[in-house]
Each structure stands twice: as structure tokens, then as C-alpha cells.
């Protein structure tokens, strides 16, 4: 079983062991095991129907596994539901919130049901409304909210009781780019503050820019589980070189294709993205520069990174033997 160690916690926040779940003939989870420590922001990736939501809902005690078990804070959530879920915040995918309540009423309800002391509820609700930018719409019925506003309120209700574990299913879905950046930063801050966050997303960028750890699930199997950096280096040792050129980028691209270590190449405006094989020697940057100069272009900027998450993700799925299905985007 793969393992993630948090900063200093002896008891893992979340343990999932050999979890199996079947819907008729479909095996939604095929013995998933993982262990998550404190302060970890785990990004859960997988295409639609891969088992992400089943895993999350089983963790949230909304579904019962056929076999295997879950421990949250070292306890069995099926036996100690109230004690455990008081310390857990959950936001489902595209949350449907009670449309007969106003945003404020709903947050008050969630705060009360989570045992927040009555003297603190008003302040906590105001704080959350302000945090997610819904102060002006606080007394409007949720039924009148836009999709993005419901999403924001969904995040607020997951955080209002200051939980130790936050489970978010596609939290930035339907948000504008500004909102996505804001919430990514917020989740990172929460993890830095010691909270454990499990966040599923089909937006690879969200996971790449937010998560400290990665789990890739596909057809009920956990394909990868570990730190993002380790994920990338294990899944592929390839490098990605991005070059901004002054001149005709298509000519530069043509010249680059002649280099033996170039595995893939794409042009986006004046930028050229080159995937370099892990077998390339240390001089690949020099060879790239020379090829570009030979094509009559000038190099304005050059960045080298290891392979990005999207490529790692695609590769892990391909390695799984199914080339017919691409990643969820």
C-alpha cells in the first residue's frame, strides 16, 4: 500500500484499505488502498466513471463498501459517524443546496448541525460569506444563485466548522478563472495550516498547481499514489522545454523535429513546446538552441521543466493499456 506521511501526525487522518465496491456487473472500486497524513493536499485524478466519486462518497459514508474499510482520524466512521464527520467538511460535485434557504440560513444550519457554539455562529457565517465573496447575496434564496455562487457557497459550508479533513469533489467546477485561482490559493493555505484536503478534479491544472500529493484512479484501480514530484519522475523522466522564438516558429519547429531526442512538439503562437526524451544527454538545451538559430529564429526565452502533470496523467492511463479513452478534460 502506498503511503503519505504528513508533517507530524502519528495517526493518519485518512486510511482507505482494500476498498471494493460493485454496482451490478461494474466494479467501481477494485481494492483501493491509501493513507493520508496531516497537512496533505491530495489531488484525486481520473476520467469520468473512473471511481473518484465512489471513493469520495464511500469516505463520506454515503455509500457502503462491499469489502475493505475506512478509518478517519483512526476511527471507524460507520460506528462513530457524528464524532468523525463533525471534523470533516465535504463538498459534493456541483452541489445541490437547499434552494428554500438563503445563503446565510444555510450556513447557519450547517454550523449548528456541526456543533459550532451558538455565540460563534453569526461571526463564523459572516466570515465565510466574506471569504467566498457572497456577503451581498447572503439573504437571497439559494434558488436564485448562479452556478458559480452555489459552488462558492458549497466551499463555505465545507469550511464553516473549521474541519480537520476537507473533502472536495470538483470544487472549482463552474467557477470563473479568477475564482479558481482564489480557491486554489485558499486550499493551499488551509493545507499549510495543517488541514488535510482531498480534492478530486478533472482540471489537471488545478491539481498540478494546488496539490502536494497525487492519486490517479482509473476504472476502479489506483494507478498511482504519492507526492506530485515523485509521480512525475516515476511516471516519466521526460523533460519539457518551452522556447519563445522571434521569427517563424514553424520553421524552428521543423528544424527541431530533426533532433533525435525530441519525442513531441507543439507550437502555440511564438512559443514552442518540446518534449525531450529522458534518454537525451545533458546537452539537449544547447542542441535545441543551435537548431533554432539554424532555422533563422532568435530565442527570446527558454524554460525547462520535467514532464507536466497532464502528460504524466495521460501516460499513466496509456500504460494501463487502454488507449481508446483519453483523460477527462
Amino acid at each position, binding site marked *: 500500500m502506498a503511503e503519505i506521511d504528513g508533517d507530524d501526525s502519528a495517526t493518519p487522518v485518512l486510511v482507505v484499505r482494500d476498498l471494493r465496491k460493485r454496482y451490478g456487473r461494474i466494479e467501481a472500486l477494485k481494492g483501493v488502498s491509501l493513507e493520508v497524513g496531516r497537512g496533505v493536499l491530495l489531488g484525486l485524478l481520473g476520467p469520468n466513471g473512473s471511481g473518484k466519486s465512489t471513493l469520495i462518497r464511500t469516505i463520506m459514508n454515503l455509500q457502503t463498501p462491499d469489502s475493505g474499510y475506512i478509518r478517519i482520524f483512526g476511527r471507524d466512521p460507520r460506528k462513530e*459517524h457524528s*464524532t468523525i464527520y*463533525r471534523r470533516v467538511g465535504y463538498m459534493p460535485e456541483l452541489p445541490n443546496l*437547499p434552494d428554500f*434557504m438563503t445563503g446565510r440560513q444555510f450556513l447557519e444550519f450547517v454550523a449548528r448541525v456541526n456543533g459550532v457554539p451558538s455565540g460563534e455562529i453569526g461571526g463564523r457565517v459572516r466570515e465565510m460569506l466574506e471569504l467566498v465573496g457572497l456577503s451581498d447575496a447572503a439573504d437571497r434564496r439559494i434558488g436564485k444563485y448562479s452556478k458559480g455562487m452555489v459552488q462558492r457557497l458549497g466551499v463555505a459550508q465545507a469550511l464553516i466548522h473549521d474541519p480537520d479533513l476537507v473533502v472536495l469533489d470538483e470544487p472549482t467546477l463552474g467557477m470563473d478563472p479568477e475564482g479558481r485561482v482564489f480557491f486554489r490559493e485558499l486550499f493551499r493555505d488551509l493545507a499549510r495550516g495543517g488541514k488535510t484536503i482531498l480534492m478530486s478534479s478533472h482540471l489537471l491544472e488545478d491539481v498540478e498547481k494546488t496539490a502536494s500529493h497525487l492519486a490517479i484512479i482509473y476504472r476502479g484501480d489506483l494507478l498511482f499514489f504519492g507526492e506530485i514530484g515523485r509521480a512525475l519522475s516515476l511516471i516519466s523522466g521526460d523533460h519539457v522545454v518551452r522556447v519563445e522564438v522571434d521569427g517563424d516558429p514553424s520553421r524552428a519547429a521543423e528544424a527541431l523535429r530533426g533532433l533525435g531526442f525530441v519525442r513531441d512538439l507543439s507550437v502555440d503562437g511564438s512559443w514552442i513546446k518540446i518534449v525531450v526524451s529522458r534518454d537525451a544527454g545533458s546537452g539537449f538545451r544547447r542542441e535545441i538552441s543551435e537548431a533554432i538559430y539554424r532555422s533563422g529564429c532568435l530565442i527570446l526565452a527558454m524554460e525547462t521543466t520535467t514532464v507536466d502533470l497532464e502528460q504524466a496523467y495521460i501516460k499513466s492511463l496509456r500504460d494501463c493499456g487502454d488507449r481508446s479513452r483519453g483523460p477527462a478534460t
Partner: protein
Amino acid sequence: MSMRPMAGGFSPLWRIWIVAEYEIQRSLAKKKIIVGIILALGASIGSGYLFSYAIGLYEAGRLPIPVDRSLAWIFMFSIPSFILASLGVLLGGGMFSEEYEKRTAEILFSKPPTRTEVFVGKILGGLMIYVAIITITLATVIVASHVFFGAQSMLSLAPTVLAASIYGNMVFFTMALMFSQLTRNTLISSVVPISLLVIMPIIQAVIIFLERTTGEDLAWIARILPTWSSDLQIYVIPRELLVRSLVLFPTTSFLYGDPVLAAFSATGYIMAFVSAAYIDIALRDVTRG
């Protein structure tokens, strides 16, 4: 964000109460419930005109049954009984299914209240509204009958009638909430019990007719139908008062029997319906896929 420690009340009873409050707010936000309440009150007051017309007929010698104007409240409370029963069905019928249909169940069941607490809290909330509606209807009837027909008699029976009405109506309320959880479909869980409310008295009437024409003992069949026990409020009123207040229910008047037996029958139905719903909510996945 602050990291303040939490304290304060967090007992199962507290959680049940919060869910009950949620259910009350949810139910009162539904237009069909508000319309039902208005209809029930309107029917009770409107029945006063019917009773007044019957008195006129009696005084003109065109009605052979003696009508007692001091028992108007019994008549006026009996008229909206179908509406009250239907209101119970509407309250129970949407109780769980609407949470699944609107996908709010995922939020509700992921919070600290256990499934048992959510189950009890929602029933408690729905029941509190239902009891309030029936009580307000009876209170309105008593006031209106005083206003229209003068001083009313036998009001000492009112608390028993109220309790019997609430308990009897719980048969269809719990039947609806059972369907609501089992089918997770509001339309089915409302239409099926209301259809039974309409059809079963007809079946009872047919059975009684057959019994009277064939001479065979068939009343027991009518007595095992849930509509028999749900008419409990009728059985706690002495038969002669029912006649003098013009509460003429051909089937139930023939089936008029032991209110204790009816209460037992109602208890059996209520327990069966609630148990079926509870087992389903406890064992079945809240979401699928």
C-alpha cells in the same frame, strides 16, 4: 480563517432537533402545503354553510334526521378530513424523495447527524407541522361554529377527537413517507397513498354492500384496510352524536367499532411503514455511482 476550538451542545437530541427545524422550514416553503392548509381551513369554514343549509331543511321538515346546531363543530371538522389526510400524504410523500430528487441528500447525510437522527428529525419536523395544521383546523372550526351556530356542546370531546385525528392520519402520513424513502420518487409516494385514500372507502362500501346482501361476514376485510384505522377520529365520537351532527359516512358508520381496536390497527400500520422506511434508509446507499 480562524482555528477556534469548538464546544457547545452536540447531543443526538440536539442534532435531531436541528434536522426537525430544517424539515419544518423545508415543508413550509412548499406552495402545495400552503395551498393545502388554506384549503383545509376554507373547507372547514365553508362546511358551515352546508350545515346551515341542512338546519334550514330540518326546520322546514324536509330532512328526517334531527340536526343539532350545537354539534356543528363535529360536522365542520369532519368535512375537511380528506384534505387533512391528503396534506399528511403531501408532507410525508416529499420528506425523503425530494432530498434525493433535488440531490440535497448528499449534503444532508454527510453532516454529523446519523441516518437515524436524520430519519427521526425529519419525521419529527413533518409531524410537528402536521399536528399544528390539524390543531389549527380544529381550533378554527370550534371558533367558527360558535360564531355561526352559537354555543357548542360536547366540547369536552375535542381533545380526544384531536388526538384521534392526529393518530389516525398518521397511517397515511407514514405510508407516504415509506413510499418516499423506498421509491425516492415524490410523484409515486404522493399519488399512491392519495389513490388508496380514494379507492379504499369505495372497496369498503362494496364489501359492506356484499355483506348485507349475502349475509356473509365480510366486514373483517374492510377492517384490515388502512382507511378503517385512519378514520379513528370518527370512532371516538358516540354514534348518536355523529348522527345528530350529520356526519354520515355509510361505510364507517356500518364499520363503527371499537376505537381501541382501530388504534391498534393504526399502530400496526404506522410501525410497519416506519420500519420499512427506516430499514431502507439505514441500509441503502444515499447515492449511487
